[in-house]
C-alpha cells in the first residue's frame, strides 16, 4: 500500500480520510494535515512524512498554487519518488489508496485520468443492458 499524506486548508484532508475509512475501513495509515485550523506549524509534518515514508509515496494537496500546495512543493518537489498531486478529489485518493500496481509516474497519471470531476448527464453513454454473450465473452 502506497504511503499517503493529504494536506489541505481546513478539515478537507481529515474529511477525505473519514470518507475513505467509511468506504474501506482501512484508512488508518493515511496521514493528514488540516492546515490553519489552529496556529500550529504544519510544515514539520511534511518534513516527517518525507523522511519516513516508504518510496514511492504520494502527497495530495487541495488547490494548485494555494499556500499548502506551495509549502509541499518547496519541501517535496525535489525528493526522488515522492509524487505531488494537486486539485485533489475523493476518487483520486481512493484510486491510489486501493491500487496495488507499481506506482510509476505514468500509472499515477492513469489513475488521475480515471478520477476526474464530470458533469452528470442522463442517458450518458450506452444504456442498453449487457447481454449474456458479451458478459461471458
Amino acid at each position: 500500500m502506497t504511503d499517503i499524506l493529504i494536506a489541505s486548508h481546513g478539515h478537507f484532508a481529515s474529511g477525505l480520510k473519514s470518507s475513505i475509512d467509511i468506504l474501506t475501513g482501512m484508512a488508518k495509515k493515511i496521514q493528514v494535515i488540516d492546515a490553519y485550523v489552529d496556529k500550529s506549524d504544519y510544515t514539520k509534518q511534511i518534513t516527517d512524512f518525507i523522511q519516513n515514508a516508504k518510496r514511492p509515496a504520494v502527497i495530495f494537496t487541495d488547490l494548485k498554487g494555494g499556500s499548502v500546495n506551495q509549502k509541499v512543493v518547496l519541501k517535496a518537489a525535489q525528493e526522488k519518488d515522492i509524487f505531488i498531486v494537486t486539485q485533489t478529489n475523493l476518487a483520486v485518493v481512493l484510486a491510489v489508496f486501493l491500487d496495488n500496481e507499481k506506482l510509476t509516474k505514468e500509472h499515477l497519471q492513469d489513475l488521475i485520468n480515471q478520477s476526474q470531476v464530470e458533469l452528470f448527464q442522463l442517458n450518458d453513454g450506452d444504456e442498453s443492458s449487457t447481454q449474456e454473450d458479451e458478459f461471458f465473452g
Partner: protein
Amino acid sequence: MIAQLRVDDRLIHGQVALVWTKELNTPGIIVANDNAANNQMVQMTLKMATPTGKKLLIRTVDDAIKVFNNPKGANMRIFALTNSVKDALKIAQNVKDIEGINVANVGRFAKDANDAVQLSSTLMLSQDELKSLKELASLDIPVFNQVVPSNAKTPIKTLLKNK
C-alpha cells in the same frame, strides 16, 4: 462460479465496487434483483457504480439463477449481489457452485423496524428475513458477515445463537 454472493441493501456502491471486486478478483458482477431488472434508472445508477473494466449483468432473481447455471460461466469468477436474504436463499437453493455467502448489510434502512432483530451493527432483520437466514445458514455453504475485507469473517451461525 460465484466467488461470493453478497447480500447488501445498497447492491453496488463504493465499498462493494472498489474494494470487493479487487479482493475477490472477480471480472464479472451480477446483480440479482427484480426491481433493478425492471427499472432503468436503478440500472443506470448501478452501471455508474461499476468499476472500469468490470462487466455487469442485471437480472431478475429467476433469470440470474439461469445465468449462474450457464456452463459458460463455470470458469468465470463472479461477484453476485442481492439486497435481501430471501433472494440470496433462493439463489443458494438453485445454484451449485457458490464459494461463500456474505450477509453484509441488511435492513438498516427498513421502514418498519418494530419487530426487527439486530444481529450485528450492520444486520437488522425482519422476522421473514430472519427465517430465511436460518434456512440459509443450514445449507452446506459458508455463510458469514464481513462488511469490508479488513473485518474478520463472522459466521452467521454464531450471530444466530439464541435467536
